[in-house]
């Protein structure tokens, strides 16, 4: 009995420590991104742009492709059900709204988590193994400023952009269905899609995408900093960076969906 209690106690403490670590890292990252530059302590702009290219621009093809597929899948899956009620036309509304409110931000975040949370963890973990993080510490330089802030800034700015691309490509996916299966002209399809969308549908997706970007950076970097035990440790932490960030993204998505349901 005590063994079971001890087990759960240890697990809960470990989880609390993890969340605490993330909170401290988040506070540091906020300070070095938004406060320190105003105080004249500098911002690593070039490194941030480099990260934007790596994590954002280079992700456009894969995000576009997957969003296109998801839009088309969504159209096929809903059309059958809607046809029973003679409302096939509503496929357009469903694709447009579901993509921009939910699927575009979520799929984008999952793809970026797979690409970038792993990259962040591997990069920082390798630096830890190579004593580069210790070297920064001994020079009195902030690891957060040097390594986390460029990634943080890159994802805060690039996640909404990628999500907009995914919004657009998802609706393009739906248009393939409209064109081939229900003979709806493209012009009419787009007019109906834009009619169906409210500003808040798109905005709520973009707000979520910024939160997802913060989650991905924090967990990717934290896992990287926590590496111990050489190359194998880097591998282990890279895996958990992806798994934990995707879990956290979906949990946050659930929380925000609930929140927006009541207040927005």
């Amino acid at each position, binding site marked *: 009995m005590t063994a079971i209690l001890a087990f759960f106690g240890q697990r809960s403490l470990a989880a609390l420590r993890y969340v605490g670590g993330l909170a401290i890292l988040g506070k540091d990252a906020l300070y070095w991104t938004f406060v320190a530059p105003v105080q004249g302590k500098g911002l690593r702009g070039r490194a941030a742009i480099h990260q934007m290219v790596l994590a954002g621009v280079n992700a456009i093809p894969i995000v576009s492709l997957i969003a296109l597929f998801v839009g088309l899948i969504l159209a096929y899956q809903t059309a059958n059900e809607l046809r029973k009620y003679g409302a096939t036309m509503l496929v357009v509304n469903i694709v447009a709204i579901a993509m921009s409110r939910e699927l575009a931000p979520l799929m984008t975040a999952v793809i970026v988590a797979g690409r970038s949370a792993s990259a962040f963890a591997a990069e920082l973990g*390798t*630096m830890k193994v*190579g*004593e*580069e993080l*210790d*070297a920064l*510490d*001994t*020079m*009195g*330089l902030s690891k957060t400023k040097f390594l986390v802030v460029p990634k943080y800034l890159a994802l805060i700015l690039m996640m909404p952009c990628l999500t907009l691309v995914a919004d657009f490509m998802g609706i393009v996916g739906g248009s393939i269905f409209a064109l081939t299966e229900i003979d709806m002209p493209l012009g009419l399809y787009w007019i109906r899609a834009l009619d169906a969308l409210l500003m808040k549908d798109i905005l709520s997706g973009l707000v979520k995408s910024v939160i997802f970007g913060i989650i991905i950076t924090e967990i990717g970097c934290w896992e990287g900093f926590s590496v111990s035990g050489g190359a194998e440790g880097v591998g282990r932490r890279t895996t958990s960076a992806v798994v934990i960030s995707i879990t956290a993204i979906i949990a946050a998505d659930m929380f925000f969906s609930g929140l927006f349901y009541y207040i927005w």
Partner: protein
Amino acid sequence: MSAVADEQAAIQVESLTTFYGERRILNNVSLEIRPRETMVLLGSSGTGKSTLLRHILALEKPALGHIYVRGVDVCHSHPREMEDLRRHMGVLFQSGALFGSMTLGDNVAVPLRELTKLDESTIQVLVRMKLGLVGLGGYEDLMPAQLSGGMRKRAGLARALALDPEVLLFDEPSAGLDPITAAGIDELILKLKQTFPMTIVVVTHELASAFLIADRIAVMFAGEIVALGTPAEIQQNQHPRVQQFLKREPEEPERDSEAYLRSLTGPA
């Protein structure tokens, strides 16, 4: 503090005790390193010498005890005070610890760019000077991955010297190098010692290197300093562990057959 307090110790370690989990790594270690002397921490692996170095660098916090560098308590001081202190300390890590994403020149320039207000042209001159000092003049534009192990250590040393530190620390400078390259690094340490008024601390298990560069040697065993003195004094020291290390005798095998049997059968 010592009785002859005419000059403050460069590094003062007071009754330092540390643990990794349940295992005691350092046991009540005290050590005074004088200004401008070269102190070698000598011992085989797992004796706690690297741990002692990491504590002096404030990379880890001890369970008990204090460490003062230039009079500043590195375990309990204000971050601003630490920041100031770090500008006076240079470190060469075992692997060189160069930033893999930057050229050699940029690596050496990092402390100059981040911690001083020098303009870029001055920084470039300083970078070339420091790289020249370690025998890497003209290699500014190479990436760390393009260098050999010995060159990486030299470049790491150039970066450690960038801000003209008062205290320079080496973690296993000859580890992983062939004897000739290692001798080159020893030569470089000797040259630095003669040229600059620095306090140098070297962690190593290389006997020849230790006796060549040290003013004083501290021999460590099982988390304690078992002998301290000039190279000549260490040669004469009769402590069995020191003699064992100097004569390069392997660890004695387990004699107690009862204990050996118990270790095989495990706890009953």
